[in-house]
C-alpha cells in the first residue's frame, strides 16, 4: 500500500523536480528516504487506529470469540475415555474379541479403582450414556463394586508367603529402583497410581500406608507371567488362589459380558470424535460404519428443516407487513411520521416475555380472538381455531416481535429515495403501479435485503418465543440446544448442533452475497 501511495499518488511536478535535483531515492525534510518516512507514518496511523479499537477488540475476543471457540471445540472433544480408562484403552487395542479377555478386565479394574478414588468414573458413565442407555449405571455400579471384588486374597497370600511383601516402607524403596520397575511393569504402574491418590487425596505418606489391593493384584499378574524382580523376596505364586476379574465384573452387571459396551469403548477411545456431529444429523456409528439412526429416534434433521422453513416464512410475513408500513412512514410528513415511528418502536420498550404472554391471552382457544370470532358468528363454539401451541402461534408471535427489524432498515432506505424519480416517471406517462414497480421498488430492494438478513438471522436462533407459544410442532432447533445445555448436560451435542446452525447461517449469507451482493444491503439511507 505504501508503495502505491508513493508512486501512484505523487504529483507529476514533484517527481520531476526531485529527479532533477538529486538522482536516487527521494528524501523527506529530515533526510530519511521519503518511502520509509511515509511507511513509518502510515504504520503509526495504523497503530493508533489499532490502539483506539483495542479495548473493543479485546472485549470481543475475551467475551465472545474465546468462549464460543471453546464451546465449539467441545463438539469433537472426547478426551474423557482415554483419560479415565488409559490402561483399558491400551489393552483393548490388543484384544479384538467381541468381549475381551481377562487382561482387559484387569486393566479396567485398575482404571476404575483409580477413577473411583477421584470420583470421575461416573462422569465417564454419563458421557457414554449419551451413546448407550444404561452405561451410566454400569459405571456407577462398577465403581461401587471394585472395592468388593475378591482381590484382597492376594495381599493375604503374599503376607503368608513373606511378611516383607506387605511392608510399605520396603515397597517405597523397591519402587524407586529402575530394575524392579522394569521387571514388574504392571506393579510399578499400579503402585504409582495408588501412591498418587494416597498422597494427593488422603494427604498420606505412601511409604507408611497399607498398600491397596490393586497393587497386589498387579504383582500377582506380573509374577504369574514369570517375572523375576531383583531385590524382592522370591515367591512362587503358582499355588496362589486367584480371582477372575472378568467373572467379577460380569457378576456385578451382565452388561460387561456383552459386546455392546466394548464396541462403545472401542469407538470412543480416540481423543477426537465425530460422534456428536453424527448424532446431530440423526446418524450413528454402527458396526459397519456410519448409518441412519432408527426411524423413531430421528429428530434433528427435521428440526433443522423446520427452523429454516419457519424462519423463511417469518421473514416473508415481515416483508409483507413491514413494507407498507415503511412506505407510509417514508411518505408522510415528518410530524405524523415521527408519531407512527413511536408506535413501531413501542414494542422494543416492552419485555419480550410480556409481549409473548400477551399473545397467549389473545390467541388461545378461549382467548380474545376466538371469543370475538365466535361472538361475530364467523365460527361456531365447537370450531374454535387453534392459533397457538403450533406453528401458527410461532409465526404470528415472532412476526410481531421481529417486525421492527424489518421496518427500520426499509424506512431508512425509502427515506433516501428522491420523490422526484417517481414524479419524473409519472410525467413521462407511467401509471401509479408502473411508477412504483419499475422505479420505486427496485430502489427499495437494498432495504428489503437488509431487513431480511436481520430478521432471518434473528429468527433462526430464536428460542424463548417458540418455547412459549410453539407447542410441540412450532419449536426450533435452538430449543433442543437449550435442552442439551441445561437439562441433559450433553454439551458436546449442543456444541455440534450450534456449530451446524452457525455453518448453515454462514452458508446462506455467502449464497446471499453471491446472488444479491452484500454491497446492495443498506441499513441507512
Amino acid at each position, binding site marked *: 500500500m505504501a508503495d502505491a501511495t508513493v508512486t501512484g499518488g505523487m504529483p507529476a511536478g514533484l517527481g520531476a523536480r526531485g529527479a532533477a535535483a538529486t538522482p536516487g531515492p527521494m528524501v523527506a525534510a529530515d533526510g530519511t528516504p521519503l518511502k520509509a518516512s511515509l511507511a513509518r507514518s502510515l504504520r503509526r496511523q495504523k497503530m493508533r487506529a489499532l490502539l483506539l479499537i483495542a479495548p473493543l477488540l479485546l472485549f470481543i475476543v475475551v467475551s465472545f470469540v474465546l468462549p464460543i471457540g471453546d464451546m465449539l471445540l467441545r463438539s469433537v472433544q472426547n478426551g474423557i475415555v482415554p483419560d479415565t480408562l488409559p490402561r483399558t484403552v491400551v489393552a483393548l487395542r490388543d484384544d479384538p474379541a467381541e468381549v475381551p479377555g481377562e487382561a482387559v478386565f484387569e486393566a479396567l479394574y485398575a482404571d476404575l479403582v483409580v477413577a473411583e478414588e477421584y470420583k470421575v468414573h461416573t462422569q465417564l458413565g454419563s458421557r457414554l450414556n449419551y451413546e448407550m*442407555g*444404561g452405561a451410566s449405571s454400569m459405571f456407577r455400579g462398577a465403581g461401587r463394586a471394585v472395592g468388593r471384588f475378591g482381590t484382597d486374597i492376594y495381599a493375604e497370600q503374599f503376607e503368608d508367603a513373606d511378611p516383607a511383601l506387605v511392608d510399605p516402607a520396603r515397597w517405597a524403596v523397591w519402587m524407586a529402583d529402575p530394575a524392579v520397575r522394569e521387571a514388574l511393569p504392571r506393579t510399578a504402574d499400579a503402585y504409582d497410581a495408588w501412591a498418587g491418590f494416597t498422597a494427593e487425596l488422603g494427604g498420606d505418606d505412601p511409604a507408611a500406608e497399607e498398600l491397596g489391593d490393586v497393587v497386589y493384584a498387579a504383582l500377582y499378574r506380573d509374577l504369574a507371567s514369570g517375572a523375576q524382580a531383583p531385590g524382592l523376596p522370591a515367591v512362587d505364586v503358582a499355588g496362589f488362589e486367584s480371582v477372575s476379574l472378568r467373572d467379577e465384573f460380569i457378576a456385578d452387571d451382565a452388561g460387561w459380558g456383552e459386546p455392546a459396551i466394548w464396541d462403545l469403548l472401542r469407538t470412543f477411545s480416540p481423543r477426537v470424535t465425530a460422534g456428536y456431529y453424527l448424532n446431530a444429523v440423526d446418524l450413528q456409528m454402527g458396526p459397519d460404519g456410519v448409518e441412519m439412526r432408527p426411524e*423413531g429416534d430421528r429428530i434433528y434433521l427435521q428440526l433443522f428443516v423446520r427452523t429454516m422453513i419457519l424462519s423463511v416464512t417469518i421473514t416473508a410475513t415481515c416483508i409483507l407487513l413491514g413494507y407498507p408500513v415503511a412506505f407510509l412512514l417514508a411518505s408522510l410528513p415528518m410530524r405524523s411520521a415521527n408519531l407512527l415511528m413511536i408506535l413501531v418502536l413501542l414494542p422494543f420498550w416492552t419485555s419480550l416475555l410480556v409481549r409473548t404472554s400477551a399473545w397467549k391471552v389473545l390467541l388461545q382457544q378461549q382467548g380474545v380472538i376466538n371469543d370475538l370470532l365466535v361472538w361475530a358468528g364467523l365460527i361456531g363454539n365447537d370450531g374454535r381455531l387453534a392459533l397457538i401451541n403450533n406453528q401458527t402461534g410461532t409465526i404470528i408471535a415472532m412476526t410481531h416481535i421481529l417486525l421492527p427489524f424489518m421496518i427500520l432498515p426499509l424506512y431508512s432506505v425509502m427515506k433516501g429515495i428522491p420523490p422526484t424519480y417517481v414524479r419524473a416517471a409519472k410525467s413521462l406517462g407511467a401509471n401509479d403501479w408502473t411508477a412504483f414497480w419499475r422505479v420505486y421498488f427496485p430502489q427499495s430492494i437494498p432495504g428489503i435485503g437488509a431487513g431480511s438478513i436481520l430478521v432471518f438471522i434473528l429468527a433462526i436462533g430464536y428460542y424463548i418465543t417458540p*418455547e412459549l407459544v410453539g407447542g410441540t*410442532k412450532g419449536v426450533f432447533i435452538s430449543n433442543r440446544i437449550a435442552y442439551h445445555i441445561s437439562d441433559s448436560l450433553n454439551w458436546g451435542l449442543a456444541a455440534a448442533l450450534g456449530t451446524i446452525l452457525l455453518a448453515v447461517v454462514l452458508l446462506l449469507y455467502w449464497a446471499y452475497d453471491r446472488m444479491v451482493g452484500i454491497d446492495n444491503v443498506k441499513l441507512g439511507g
Partner: protein
Amino acid sequence: MTITKLMGSAALALLPMAGAAFAQDASAELPPCEGCAESMVIMSWGGAYQNSQLKAYVEPYIAQTGIAVTWDESSNEAIAKLRAAQEAGNMPFDLVDVEGPDAQRACDEGLAAEIDVAEVLAPGADGATVEDDFGDSLINDCYVPQIYFSTTFGYRTDVAEWNGATPDDLCDVFDTTAFPGKRSLQASPKKNLEWALICDGVPAADVYKVLEEEGGVERALAKLDTIKGDVIWWTAGAETPQLLADKEVVIGSTYNGRLFSVIAEQGQPVEMLWDYQNFDFDGWIVPAGLDEARMNRVMHFLHFATDTQRLADQAKYIAYGPARASSQPLVSTHAELGIEMAPFMPTNPDNMKNFLVNNIEWWADHQDEVEATFQNWLAQ
C-alpha cells in the same frame, strides 16, 4: 418404604396440637460456628418456594448468626451453572437447591460434595436417627432432602359436558368419552409414560420393567396417542394453573404446590386428583471444592435448616411434605390463610392410596434415548 412410614405419622398431623410437644425454641441450642465464612450464596427456585425457605429457616438463621445471605434464583439450570462454574475454577455458590434427578447428576458428575448426613444433620426430634428419619429420600451421598413434592392432576369442577361426574381415577385422564375436553401434560416422557402404562393395564410395580423391554416405550406412547389430539404440552410448572384458570384445559398435570395456590389462594373451581401422584424430592447439594470456611458455614446452616422443626415450619408456607418423618406430626396451618395444610400435603395418607416414586436411577440411565423417542413422537 419410608413413604408408608410417613403415612402413619402424617395421620397425626390431623390431630390438633399434636406437634406442640415437639415445638421448641432453637435459639438456645444453635452452637456458635467456628472458622466459618460470614456470608453464603444460596441458589434456589425463586417465587413461593424460595419464600418458604426464607421464612422457615433462612431468616431465623440470619437473625441468630447475623451472616449475609445472597440468593441466586436459577435452580432450573443449576447443573449447567455448576458445571460452568467448576470448569471456570470459581464457584460462586455455597448451597444449591435441586430436585432429586439433578442431585443424582451433580453427584455423578463430581459437581457436588459428598456429605456425611449422620454427622452433619440433627437427629429427629423424636429421637430417630438421621438415616431413619429421612429414609428413602436420601437418594445418594450428596443429597440433603427438604421436601417431598408430587406431580399430580387438577381438574375443573364446572365442566358441563361431564354431567356432574368427577374424575377420581388416573385413567379418567385418558377417558375422553366420559371426560371430554383438553388436557395439559408435561412435554417430557417422565411421568407420562408411567401413567400411560398403568392405564394400559401394567401393574405399578412393573412399570419400569415394561419400559425397559423392547417395545415398552412404544406401548406407552400408543396409549398416549389415544389422547394426543386433546393435549396441550407444558414446559413450565405455572402453565397448567393458568390453562385451568383460563378454561383452556379441563384436567392438567403439574406440581401439587401450584395446584394449592390455584385452589386455596386464587379460589378457582379446581379440585385435585391424587390418584398415582408421582413423588419426587427437592433438597440441597453443596458444590464440590469449597474452601474450609465456606464449607463450615454451609454445614452449620444445614444442621439448623433441616432439623425437624424447621422442615415442619416450611409447610406453613407451601404445600409440600417435609422430607423427615419426624416433621410430619408438626405440620399445622398455613401461615397467612390459616387453613389446615394436611389435606394438601402429598404425604397425607388420604392422598396416597396410589402413588409412584420417581425412579431416578432408571431415568438417569434411559433419559437420553427415551427423550429422543418422545420428542420424535411429539413432532409426528
